[in-house]
């Protein structure tokens, strides 16, 4: 390394401007990059089916799948039986999520805010959370029947725990300075909870809600697989027993759209409510 004895004045020599090197594939626009990955995926899929590497019963061609996606789409738009099935599943998901939010948030506040809840209730919640919750499906079906109630129960059961954990962790995330400040202002416990701890914990609460949004779909569909009913899960089950694999695939695609929609709603709410960008809540630090 040699230091220039006589550095050129600023901007005098354009060739010496130092440009940071970024690999070309890191500079590709996001949409192009995503389209590329999608194309590669479809291409490989096409190749595998074209070469007859897998039986068509196991894996339909992309075109077959697309045709069925359109077919199912027509059925949905036409308001035929699939729309009713989708509606049934959507209701199970919505009720399950609402129930999980109500129970999970209440338990989370109880566990996160009171020493009693933390000491006496949390251990049981942790114990239940480690169980494979899907295994409870037969119990819910036995208790609540083959209608939507058992699906709602399973969906809510799966989605409650992440919300409890997220809420409790969020309430604990307020730091000592913020607590001290509220104490100096003579704040009541309720004021401290509502004006400081809950807003502070919103990022963690939303993390819990996002995990719950994924879990609630899984719960509702598992419930329909195991407990019948008239939802999308039942359509998938029937299609698979008929070895109608394109149908299974297209139904899954529509289901994942629903899942993405729910997830997207939660993300949108997070952006709206947690508009400050830092994940730390205490601002003004250097």
């Amino acid at each position, binding site marked *: 390394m040699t230091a220039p004895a006589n550095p050129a004045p600023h901007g005098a020599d354009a060739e010496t401007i130092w440009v940071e090197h970024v690999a070309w594939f890191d500079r590709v626009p996001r949409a192009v990059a995503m389209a590329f990955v999608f194309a590669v995926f479809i291409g490989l899929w096409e190749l595998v089916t074209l070469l007859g590497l897998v039986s068509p019963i196991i894996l339909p061609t992309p075109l077959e799948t697309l045709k069925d996606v359109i077919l199912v789409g027509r059925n949905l738009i036409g308001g035929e039986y699939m729309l009713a099935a989708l509606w049934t599943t959507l209701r199970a998901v919505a009720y399950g999520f609402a129930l999980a939010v109500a129970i999970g948030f209440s338990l989370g506040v109880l566990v996160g805010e009171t020493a009693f809840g933390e000491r006496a209730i949390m251990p049981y919640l942790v114990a239940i959370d480690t169980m494979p919750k899907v295994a409870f499906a037969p119990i819910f079906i036995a208790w609540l029947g083959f209608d939507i109630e058992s699906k709602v129960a399973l969906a809510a059961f799966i989605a409650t725990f992440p919300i409890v954990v997220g809420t409790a962790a969020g309430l604990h995330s307020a730091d000592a*300075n913020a607590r*001290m400040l509220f104490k*100096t*202002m*003579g*704040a009541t416990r309720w*004021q401290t909870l509502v004006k400081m701890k809950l807003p502070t914990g919103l990022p963690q609460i939303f993390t819990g809600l996002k995990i719950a949004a994924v879990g609630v779909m899984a719960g509702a569909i598992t419930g329909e697989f195991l407990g019948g009913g008239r939802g999308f899960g039942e359509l998938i089950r029937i299609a698979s027993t008929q070895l109608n694999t394109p149908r299974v695939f297209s139904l899954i695609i529509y289901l994942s759209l629903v899942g993405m929609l729910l997830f997207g709603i939660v993300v949108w709410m997070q952006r709206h409510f947690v508009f400050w960008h830092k994940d730390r*809540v205490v601002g*003004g*630090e250097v």
Partner: protein
Amino acid sequence: MSSVAALASVPTQSAEIVYQLSGIGKTYARNATHALQGIDLTLRKGSFSSVIGSSGCGKSTLLKIMAGLVPPSTGRVVLQGRPVTGPRRDIGMMFQQATLFPWRTTIENIVLPIEIRDGKKAALAAHDPARALLELVGLKGFDKAYPGELSGGMAQRAAICRMLITEPAVLLLDEPFSALDELTRDFMNMELQRICASRDATAFLVTHSIPEAVILSDVVYVMKPRPGRIAEEVVIDLPRPRTLEMITTPKFGALVERIRNRLDKEAFI
């Protein structure tokens, strides 16, 4: 110690007593830490006092007891004639961290103490005095800014406004500027002096910076650790208003030296 105080040429020595601490001791039961012992302290209206001591010698504990945040194990704290038994609105506090909440604008952060004590309506009515305070600390026009948009120094200025909004009789300051860089810190100390003078505020500052204590105070209390107690009371008879240029004067140097000697001797016992 009263004999030392009698020597003081502090203009406030005849002013009314605001704070009176007698025989304050504190033992934290949790870890059997003997944090404070036999602290007697008298603060007069309009005076600026500092307590200086090594880390862990009980300075913050003393301040929390004065503020009614932590009960003392022994002794009594009386503020404006009434014993301190909990947080009070005539006490304003400031800490090392500004602790502004990022979901509130600067002005909403400043009126938070009013909102907590008197409700949303009173907080809204306090927006005008809050804007006046923002102007006082040089943050005019930042009322609608979010804390994320403020620098560290600006955030501490906002914290000063939040402390002053309830018009407290005393200001308790726990290393308020020690998270700032040195230039900002010097500047903020001069601002603090100006603000205190303009409101005839009684201030009590905890610090571990000797020059900071000397430049701001009428009296500096040197604390000895384990258990925390006041080893010496050093009267700072530099003229007011103080300026940063005073730091280079021999008199300032002698005062700093005196406190440093006292601290060094105690720190290793």
